[in-house]
């Protein structure tokens, strides 16, 4: 293909060429960053929680008479016996917070009592010996709590536990050589150590904020019922009996005592709902970025169709002359395709620079991640193909201009 005549022709409509290139550059820069945001959000949403989510639901029970801790402790134990006796329930455990809830208790974890700075941060889950079975999380080393180890913890008392079970990721963070089992760690800012008696498979923390990224899989299970103004019950239904269990469980709890509040809106939630709530903003952002990207690409494609159509109309006579001088339809078609490709290449070159520029600025402003090269590369291919696709119809129309057009005066 002869590029020289194309470049010469471009010089005659500089403005249009520059505008299309600019549009392609801006579109590339925005779409790359938008797709990158979408990918990051999807990756976040796809993170495993480590739970048997399909059969799991949670109940939040607020105590209407927030009286003395002993009564709450006894009530919780009675509630749990009632829940575990239900035919539709496989197991149930009390817990103060759970993976993906968003709020809860997190502590600095230290390896030495005198350490000034923390080693890492971790979610603290207060539960009992049924926690692992209710969560559907496996132990990969060590042992579970025994019923006799389970104590009671008041929310504003100094926290301590002689035994803890920790998540795989926390174990690895504290002892990268894999020797965490049996070691002592400090989970409560105090000077009393806790022994790691068990390590679970993947277990997600309750924290979902972006600050908690490095700690998202750090969890410590403490064998104690937290005697707060409310508690959560994690209930794992027998396979296929989630609906039945969700009907039975609140009834069983109210049969135990009516002095409790189970919110009609979100007092009982399936884990699917918990997940949806935790990741709703991410899903929304991904959808929004998706919509904007589609609109952008459509508008850019339509813009290319519009301008090229104009050029074809403007050059009917020249096309006729070329055809009369022996150019084939294929020549005309490839002329417009090549022209578009050249403009497209100019546009994406500028776009790549712009995409990285925007990303760098976003990194400095919003602490987002660095744009990966693969995204920009696929964006480049996408836009070049889009340009070629958009130019096809006007180019085909141009190739159908008959040679006789050369003899017409207007």
């Amino acid at each position: 293909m002869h590029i020289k005549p194309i470049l010469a022709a471009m010089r005659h409509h500089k403005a249009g060429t520059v505008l299309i290139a600019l549009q392609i550059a801006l579109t590339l820069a925005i779409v790359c960053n938008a797709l990158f945001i979408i990918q990051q959000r999807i990756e976040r949403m796809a993170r495993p929680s480590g739970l048997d989510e399909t059969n799991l639901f949670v109940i939040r029970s607020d105590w209407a008479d927030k009286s003395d801790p002993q009564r709450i402790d006894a009530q919780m134990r009675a509630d749990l016996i009632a829940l575990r006796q239900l035919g539709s329930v496989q197991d149930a455990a009390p817990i103060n917070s759970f993976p993906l809830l968003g709020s809860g208790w997190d502590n600095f974890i230290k390896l030495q009592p005198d350490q000034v700075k923390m080693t890492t941060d971790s979610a603290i889950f207060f539960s009992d010996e049924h926690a692992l079975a209710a969560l559907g999380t496996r132990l990969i080393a060590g042992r579970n709590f025994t019923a006799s180890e389970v104590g009671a913890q008041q929310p504003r008392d100094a926290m301590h536990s002689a035994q803890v079970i920790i998540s795989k990721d926390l174990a690895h963070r504290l002892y990268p050589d894999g020797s965490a089992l049996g070691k002592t760690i400090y989970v409560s800012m105090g000077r009393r150590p806790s022994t790691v008696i068990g390590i679970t498979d993947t277990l997600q923390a309750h924290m979902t904020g972006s600050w908690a990224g490095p700690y998202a899989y750090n969890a410590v299970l403490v064998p104690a019922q937290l005697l707060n103004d409310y508690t959560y019950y994690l209930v794992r239904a027998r396979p296929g009996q989630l609906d039945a269990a969700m009907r039975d469980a609140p009834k069983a709890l109210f049969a135990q005592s009516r002095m409790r509040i189970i919110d009609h809106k979100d007092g009982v939630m399936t884990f699917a709902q918990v997940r949806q709530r935790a990741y709703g903003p991410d899903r929304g952002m991904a959808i929004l970025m998706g919509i904007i990207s589609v609109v952008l690409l459509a508008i850019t494609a339509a813009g290319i169709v519009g301008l090229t159509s104009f050029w074809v109309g403007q050059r009917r006579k020249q096309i006729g002359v070329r055809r009369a001088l022996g150019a084939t339809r294929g020549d005309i078609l490839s002329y417009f395709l090549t022209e578009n490709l050249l403009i497209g290449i100019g546009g994406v070159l500028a776009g790549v620079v712009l995409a990285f520029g925007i990303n760098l600025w976003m990194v400095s402003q919003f602490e987002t991640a660095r744009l990966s090269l693969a995204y920009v590369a696929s964006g480049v291919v996408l836009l070049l193909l889009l340009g070629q696709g958009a130019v096809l119809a006007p180019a085909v129309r141009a190739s159908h201009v008959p040679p006789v057009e050369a003899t017409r005066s207007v």
Partner: protein
Amino acid sequence: MFAYYLELALRSLRRSPGLTALMVLAIGFGVAASMTTYSVFRAVSGDPIPWKSAQLFVPQIDNWGPKDRDTDGEPPSAMSYLDATTLMRDHRARRQSAMYQISPSVVPTQAGKHPLNVTGHAVYSEFFPMLDVPFLYGSGWSAQDDAQRAAVAVISSKLNEKLFGNVDSVGRTVNIEGRDYRVVGVIDHWNPQPRFYDVTNTGGFSENVEDVFLPFERAISVGLPNNGNTNCNATPKESGFVGLQHSECVWIAYMAELDDAAAVAAYRQYLDAYAKNQQKAGRFGWAPNNRLRNLPDYLQQQQVVPRDTKVSLLVALGLLLVCLVNTVGLLLAKFLRRSGEIGVRRALGAPRKAIYLQFLTEAGMVGAAGGVLGLLLTGVGVASVGLVLPKSISDLARLDLSLLAITLLVAVLATLLAGLYPTFRASRVQPAWQLKSN
């Protein structure tokens, strides 16, 4: 003459309906995306109390020291009980209130009704006049009630309706956490967003209306625990809620009203002197590291506007920019296609100004049509932000007259701007050349 240009523009737009539709669609989508995201941004970045925010200040005292400071050197964003109550006792601002979030249960008097869980704040009497809280019935309590730890309560109109029906309940009794309180005031639909008086505990936005306000010292004396965030740099030495009060844990929000620069400077001096005294007394092992920001600065520092909202707005503005570049190209094509017509008009004596007017009129019409489409799409957008944003934020986005006006204005102005270069090119068409070549 303008009517004539309108007619010309209309005729020209009708001649190429495809191109016209394309431009109108591009402007419409670009403007709608920008305006929808802007409506959300406007809602979350707005000043919740514009008439007074410059006089409202949030003091922060560094009771943790350099060891527990973040990399930015900021002191904790909430206060310990000791600092908050000392500041209240010293009473150096015109008005001030310490406050903490509570979540008591309310037991309705009617038989058969379930107890309710409500949220609210324990505050001082000056909270209500300081924040211009609107009352439907009654008013806040007095400073005397503060001092006497009176069993009084201010409730929301929503809770009032639930408990008493739609009547003036001032003087009646409400059972909160097992104790009787006398209602002194009913708040008239007050749900400021961002929840500026306690950002630490709400993150700025909350779907729930605050249902009860109780006197701070009363709530402390009956042991009504805090329900919000508690941050500690060390385990409290004593246990329970009392232990928390004696600790350096931070869990109390604070706000002060300072009228002018002199008052602000004086208050700043007071805070520094307080911290210096604490240093002398041995409680702080470091130099004063206080902050005193007015409300807008404080909200900005706390990054109340969600990042996603800013990013969305920027991306949508990018879309609008691309739409405009697109429109420049299409208008250019459209105008230059009529070079012959321009040549004839110019040859017949039309000055450049007339060409400018004619083509800008045309661009303006495209803009107006795009604006109308943009209005419809913005309506759809604002109505459906709930599908992609958390409820606490999407509920705040509203379509009002000013948003409608801005939408139209942005559409028309942007299109006129986009039309400038094509019009300039059209006005430069050489009449002689056009007449000869045709």
